């Protein structure tokens, strides 16, 4: 039943994203309009894929770090991506794909640094070390980014920040194809780690006694979640709250089993971001809001409600 509801919500969100938009397109022309075919449809599907990727990555990281605050960008990836994007603009790295490639490279660079720091002290990937390393790497990247922005000519780099706030305006069939070819691999790695992640919730020692190869699972989950996030940030900037909020919502309905939790988070994240992007495109049309602002505006009140619920005796 709850899967049916989620499936209907996902289909409804995608349908609304195709039907609604700032350009008035009559219902009868939806099938033939080039605006729908070349802009709306790939954008709706990209939003779904990015939202799903972020929520799944968030679920994996929350399970791995056993920390409810974990979100795909907590471990320094947004700082790394931002640095990559600002460098690409400041140095005029060419080509139509310069910005996304640089953002991806920056996020992967941050991931590698945090991973190396997490191995300090005996290759344990201790959650506390990882969190500290993530915050430190993120702060360092942000400092370098601000230094570049304050030394370079300002107007262009202001736009780099706008890009970083998140938006799906770069959606096209090509972007979608690249992401659709990339995302299944880390998703499959996370899905394969569903049972060990359940065991990990009991603590590392018990998980080990119950037969989980804890070190390997931690490595795989961290790398898969980070690579998903890096791809998402490359095509859409930093979109907050989807990866933090959706896993918690999914846990309320589906419980703590990752076998159900991961696909539910994927569908839920996709639905949420597709709806948020439709709002971003339409509420102030013809202007557009950064979708990260919409997810935060919707996400924070929902999150506050959740906190109240947990806080109740």
């Amino acid at each position: 039943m709850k899967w049916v509801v989620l499936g209907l919500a996902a289909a409804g969100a995608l349908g609304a994203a195709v039907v609604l938009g700032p350009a008035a397109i009559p219902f009868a022309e939806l099938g033939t309009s080039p605006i729908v075919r070349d802009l709306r449809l790939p954008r709706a599907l990209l939003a779904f894929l990015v939202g799903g990727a972020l929520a799944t990555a968030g679920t994996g990281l929350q399970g791995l770090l056993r920390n409810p605050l974990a979100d795909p960008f907590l471990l320094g990836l947004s700082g790394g991506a931002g640095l990559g994007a600002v460098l690409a603009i400041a140095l005029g790295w060419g080509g139509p794909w310069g910005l996304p490639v640089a953002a991806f490279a920056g996020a992967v660079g941050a991931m590698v640094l945090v991973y190396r720091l997490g191995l300090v002290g005996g290759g344990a990937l201790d959650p506390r070390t990882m969190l500290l390393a993530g915050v430190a790497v993120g702060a360092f990247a942000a400092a370098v980014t601000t230094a570049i922005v304050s030394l370079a000519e300002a107007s262009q780099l202001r736009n780099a920040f706008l890009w970083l706030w998140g938006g799906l305006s770069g959606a096209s069939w090509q972007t979608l194809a690249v992401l659709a070819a990339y995302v299944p691999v880390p998703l499959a790695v996370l899905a394969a780690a569903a049972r060990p992640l359940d065991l990990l919730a009991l603590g590392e020692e018990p998980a080990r006694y119950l037969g989980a190869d804890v070190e390997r699972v931690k490595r795989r989950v961290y790398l898969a979640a980070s690579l998903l996030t890096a791809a998402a940030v490359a095509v859409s900037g930093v979109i907050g709250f989807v990866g933090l909020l959706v896993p918690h919502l999914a846990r309320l309905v589906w419980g703590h089993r990752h076998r159900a939790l991961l696909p539910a988070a994927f569908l839920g994240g996709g639905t949420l971001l597709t709806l948020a992007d439709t709002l971003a495109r339409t509420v102030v049309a013809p202007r557009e809001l950064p979708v990260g602002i919409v997810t935060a505006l919707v996400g924070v009140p929902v999150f506050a409600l959740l906190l109240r619920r947990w806080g109740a005796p």
Partner: protein
Amino acid sequence: MRPGNSRFVAGLALLAACGTGAPGRPGALAVTDDAGRRVTLAAPAARVVSLAPSLTELLFALGAGPQVVGRTTWCRYPPAAAAVADVGDGLNPNLEAVAARRPDLVLLYHSPLNETAAAQLARLGIAAVLLRQDRHADVARHARLLGVLTGHAAAGDSIGRVLDSVVARPTPPAGVRVAFVVWDAPPTVIGAGSYLDELVTLAGGANVFHDLRPASATVSLETIADRDPGVIAILADSGAVVPPVWARRPEWRAVRAVRAGRFLVLPADLFGRPSPRAPEAVAELRRLLAREATP
């Protein structure tokens, strides 16, 4: 870049020539700046620090260039401005660097941060005016105001009259429909609040985003495709490539003008800010739009 730069320089020289002579009359000079502050000088300012590129350009056009003793890092026009001491980027003025130039007048862009700076300068006994030069009409007003303060009142009037006449001239009917794209990701366009929107109208074109009130705004790519401008205008420095790299992004191909390669590259030096060279800018834009209208 297209030919015609020499014409702009010639036009500037002509404007500057009007400003020679007419030294300041004795007695107090009083003006009200854009913040509503009353500023009085005992005599025309002999040492001026300008903390806005558009105002630096205006000072040189007035013939007050030799009186300019400080400028921002971004004051690149006219080329003679490069010889003036650089006192910083002008956004958050370094008052020590400004005061070290021993100015008797400081020009600031009118912003809340600069109001504080003007008050601090007043405590040091340095007169400051806050001017917001965002629109075409601001340039004429400021030409007259700065003409008075620097002892080039006749030149100020002359520039003001020339600029007023640009607006007074009947606008030819709106022909080419233009979208001014200032950034590609997210797509950002020029709205009615910008000087560029005025220029397009004065040159007989129509900005397809004239209904947006701010100077610039992020819009959906879908809206640009739907409004279907005949030409995409972009501001660019002289080294710019045409068409811009983002024109090769697949999502931008949904816009017909992008597919057809209809780009209008406007030199940032002439079109980037409201300036006394507005007549040249309008004439140049009118010429370019006419060429677009008859391919």
